């Protein structure tokens, strides 16, 4: 019979269920907040873009802002583009634009072709709709936030994740992972997940050999 711990999501603090957008709260820089960002977006007529490299927290920021945009009385519709889709789900967009005070939120705007981007902007303008997007590089929409996570932020996130679920990694692992993955926090969490698994198995092997 097995003597290892019972398999559970609590066994690894870097599992997707703890790190996916929405599960982990977005950490704003000092002086910044979700409320301020939404106010700035409103001042930009609900048009804006969040710019940052892969895994820098753009989707997490959108997941934080979307309910606040809805709370401000607007109809926010989120569209997540994956796998380098070159076009929008137009039916979803049509439905979104038919709602009162619409705001269309597109995660992965850079995946759209130039034509699709132009068509999206045109449709949003024609419907007096807001448009909030994420992109890896500036696309010409009013800038709402530029994300570039540093080691301090990574350490804060790791501390939050490991507060209730102890990790078998050290601060050295976190620094080494950050040195490899840079500001790609998603990849960094994958790396820390692996380091934690390796460390747990090593501890288990040692314990079993002693026993």
């Amino acid at each position, binding site marked *: 019979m*097995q003597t290892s711990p*019972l*398999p*559970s999501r609590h*066994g690894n603090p870097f599992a*997707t269920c703890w790190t996916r957008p929405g599960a982990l709260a977005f950490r704003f820089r000092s002086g910044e907040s979700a409320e301020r960002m939404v106010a700035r977006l409103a001042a930009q007529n609900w048009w804006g873009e969040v710019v940052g490299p892969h895994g820098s927290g753009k989707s997490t920021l959108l997941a934080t802002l979307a309910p606040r945009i809805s709370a401000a009385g607007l109809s926010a519709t989120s569209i997540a583009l994956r796998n380098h889709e070159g076009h929008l789900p137009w039916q979803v967009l049509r439905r979104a634009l038919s709602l009162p005070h619409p705001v269309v939120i597109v995660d992965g705007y850079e995946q759209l072709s130039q034509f699709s981007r132009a068509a999206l902007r045109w449709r949003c303008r024609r419907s007096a709709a807001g448009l909030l997007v994420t992109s890896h590089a500036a696309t010409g929409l009013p800038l709402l936030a530029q994300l570039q996570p540093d080691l301090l932020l990574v350490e804060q996130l790791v501390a939050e994740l490991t507060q209730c679920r102890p990790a078998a990694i050290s601060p050295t692992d976190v620094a080494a992972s950050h040195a490899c993955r840079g500001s790609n926090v998603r990849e960094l969490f994958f790396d820390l997940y692996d380091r934690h*698994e390796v460390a747990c198995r090593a501890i288990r092997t040692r314990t079993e050999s002693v026993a």
Partner: protein
Amino acid sequence: MNSDNKLLKLERSSGVYEPGERMSGYFLAEGSQGQSIRAAELSVLWYTSGQGEEDFEIHHFERLVDDPGRPLDLRTPRRFAVVLPPSPLSYEGRIVKVCWCVRLRLFPRQGPEMVEEAAFRLGDVPAAPMTVEE
């Protein structure tokens, strides 16, 4: 609600069961600050956890509701028993884990719902070993 006023317990302390075996346990709860529980849901389910997409399936579900004809009093232990299925077996993999648990969700008259889980193992699949390069 804190751990003082809710409890979910499996009768087998090891938490290890064979496929097709009968698992039993009990739960009890007391509303914090005197407030009563409107409903309780007990599920026996498996889910995957790891680095990618997650999956889950509920094997057993029961809902208890407080109504005037049948008041819901969870201050005394409420027993449950479930025959476990042949699969999926619990697995402690590197990339993905298959996890089984009993989940108790409590809905008080006021305030947010509360969740308590008791993990258990189905079967005896060994954990994934370390690979050579590690």
